[in-house]
């Protein structure tokens, strides 16, 4: 019984454990609503040192500075969009992990769909070119021959 309890407790502890966070306790805001918004924004912002991590994930000192700025802007009353705009004004769209839809990014956003449509059209055209024309209806002579063969087969079966 005791053993089962230890097992269950261990399992619960393993399941409850979350991955180590880059965000230090001293950075977090006491206001949980603002802190949640800060985390959501931080996940959308690129760490410009490590480049493929969000600032929420990164342990780089510059990412820490940027997280603190995000929280300061939120406390100052900025909207989520204003916080992002603050960093975009300094680092460009590069700092956004999700690039905005605008003149120079439309190819990035729509090229996959264009390729998909193109490939679909190609497959459709290929399939169509391979399908055979419908066969001509049987002539009377063919019908008679078919009838004869069927009868012959039925006779051999009944033997």
């Amino acid at each position, binding site marked *: 019984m005791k053993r089962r309890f230890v097992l269950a407790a261990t399992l619960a502890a393993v399941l409850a454990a979350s991955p180590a966070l880059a965000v230090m306790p001293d950075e977090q805001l006491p206001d949980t609503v603002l802190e949640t918004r800060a985390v959501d924004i931080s996940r959308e912002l690129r760490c*410009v040192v490590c480049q493929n991590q969000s600032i929420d994930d990164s342990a780089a*000192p510059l990412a820490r500075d940027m997280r603190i700025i995000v929280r300061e802007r939120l406390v100052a009353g900025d909207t989520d969009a204003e916080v992002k705009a603050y960093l975009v004004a*300094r*680092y*460009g769209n590069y700092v956004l992990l999700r690039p905005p839809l605008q003149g120079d990014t439309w190819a990035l956003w729509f090229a996959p769909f264009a390729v998909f449509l*193109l490939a679909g059209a190609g497959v459709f055209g290929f399939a169509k070119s391979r399908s055979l024309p419908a066969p001509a209806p049987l002539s009377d002579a063919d019908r008679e021959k078919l009838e004869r063969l069927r009868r012959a087969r039925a006779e051999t079966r009944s033997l």
Partner: protein
Amino acid sequence: MLRWIVFVPVALFAILAVTFGLGLRRDPSAIPSVLIDRPVPAFVLEPVKPGVAPFRQEDLKGKVSLLNVFASWCSACRYEHPTLMALAENNTIPIYGLDWKDEPRACLDYLERSGDPFVSIGGDMSGRAAIDLGVTGAPETFVIDKAGQIRYKHVGPITEDVWRDTIAPLVARLEAET
């Protein structure tokens, strides 16, 4: 008989190959600065050298200058230090320093040992001025024109080659501007 349509995949492949081929030649770590042709953002930084006035962005107006982001902890900065020293010794161009997230004491020790090429140094302990400048790492060097506008950002150490081939021609052009 070959119909024209069979060449479509070949043409598409050629376009993709050229696109990716060009893409591979680009340096993915180079982040274009959005501050090019914009004024240096406002800052007032504590002087690292004792007994002088704070370093402000207005100090950069009226001449072509370099703003060098460095730190005593930055190993790549040591690599470019001789180039900066040579520029300072020949009075080629005034160099201003932004000492990024660094103890002033450590910075002064570093300059005592390897020489001080800087006209003035601002200490950016909090890293805010660096973020306003869109700094992604040290060293980075901004070329500032006479109007106090950022005209170029070099990421990484300024070697002799970088100075001769990239920055010196630009500085000469900016000097010619009125």
